[in-house]
């Protein structure tokens, strides 16, 4: 199997990496040079080997599901009380540990802050 310039353009798009047109030819050569070494794997009879090995694997132990090991929430008392930050800027109100922010104007039903 070998990659073409179009393939490289496509995978660069998938990877969100901008590749200049003048770099495409050398990337095609480099990637095909590497991929040629992978072809040897197609000759190996290995079907199902990974599934068989996974079945024998003990895996990582699971922790008790009672509390996160690192606190994911802070008590509301820590974040709610001050109504103004040190620099005087107004602090948002808090309900149930969530900050209240104005409804985004881009929402179709944009209306009052809620």
């Amino acid at each position: 199997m070998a990659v073409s310039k179009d393939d490289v353009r496509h995978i660069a798009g998938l990877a969100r990496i901008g590749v200049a047109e003048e770099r495409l030819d050398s990337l095609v050569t480099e990637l095909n040079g590497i991929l040629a070494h992978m072809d040897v794997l197609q000759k190996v009879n290995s079907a199902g080997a990974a599934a068989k090995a996974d079945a024998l694997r003990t895996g990582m132990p699971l922790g008790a599901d009672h509390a996160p090991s690192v606190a994911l929430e802070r008590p509301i008392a820590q974040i709610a009380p001050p109504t103004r930050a040190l620099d005087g800027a107004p602090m948002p109100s808090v309900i149930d540990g969530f900050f209240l922010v104005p409804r985004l104007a881009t929402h179709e039903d944009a209306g009052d802050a809620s």
Partner: protein
Amino acid sequence: MSATPESVLHDGAAAIAAAVREGRMSPRSVVEASFARAEEVDAGPNGLNCILSSDLNSSLHAVESAPVGGALAGVPFVLKDNIATTTLNTSCGSKILEGYVSPYDSTVARKLRAAGAILVGKGNMDEFAMGSSTEFSAFGPSRNPIDRTRVPGGSSGGSAASVAAGIVPIAFGSETGGSVRQPAAFCGVVGVKPTYGRISRFGLVAFASSLDNIGVFGRTVDDAARAMEVVSGDDALHDATSARLAAPELRTDSRDLAGVVIGKPKEYFPASLTPAMRAHCERAIDALRARGAEIRDVSLPHTDLALPVYYIIAPAECSANLARFDGVRYGLRMEGEGLRGMYEATRSTGFGTEVTRRILLGTYVLSAGYYDAYYRKAQDVRALIAKDFTDVWASGVHALFTPTTAAPAFTIGAISDPYEMYLCDLFTVSANLAEVPAISVPIGRIDGLPVGGQVIAPKFDERMMFRISYALESELGQAAHT
């Protein structure tokens, strides 16, 4: 003559910790000696360039709160630049993370601090640990302290060079396919890749998560064992990267290998191995025999498939892990047309050539139509490679001995073909694929350049690996460095 900070730095971690514990030496003086040594060897156009960031004040501040009774009291150490710390940059050798400071410490950094060790710098590395020479660092290549025209190996080249140059007695790197053992061999120091899961990876910037390990460098086997005892074991955070096993006791006074069976896999001694490398390995094998070990010829028949498998799985996982560097959450952001334009401009500017190549390769082997042919196939063959090892252990073999690399360090700039560079990992990638522990120990020099021998052991049997390494180091003596 009484010990000085400079002399204990050379004597190693055990000597420093003992001197600090007994009040014969202040940790401050040792840290200052470490910085002075770094300044002497690291700077200038021909400097080693092995430390990317350091701050004397921050290290001296750490000294004030460090426990003087700890196992590594006052021992200065270097962490590879992809291991998170709150006090110095964690740039991964990449422009995309230049100047980035982590909001939290890695487990390894936390355990070392609790043991009294002092962070003195972050080690140079190939960008995101992708490379075998430290030439692919965005901040310039490191040089080998033994011969400055040559590479220190990689990707943890800065950490290895820091130990070899006498800046620190211990350092830490990361291993995905040999990135600790290969630079250890090139720089003439000891390098350990533990069993997958033995050392927590919490705070290690991920490259290929099923292959990544944090590894240890020491000038001696004993220093490496001490450092590894401190950083091994269950993570207090119970993160998903460490096995629920206590840190093993790795140090031993025994230098005897009676009853130990060591396999010599024929695939690691191909006809193409140079006579000089073969002779050094044979001398090391004779040393193991002299200590009572039985040497047995064995075979790991799928060894020649390890490199193709590795260079499918590692880029595939890297393409997923490095997707997070998008200009939004970390580091560099470049302007572009729209959100997608910003992503593409940021990533093409921030990533270097090798990282880009591997992300593209990984994206390709995971893409629709090619997943089964490449990625699924590689996973199946990886299982066969791992089975080779379990079959050998089942035959009564306790460990394996091989060369770490096929040749000593090469000249900076000598290798330009990507796959030729990948061949540097020929003898090391299998241990990562099979998740087994492996260590590189100096076994001699070829034309003045260090070479290493590799001991590979069954999963979680680092004790056997160290027992053999202690005996090998002891029997070879000064011959390991000549």
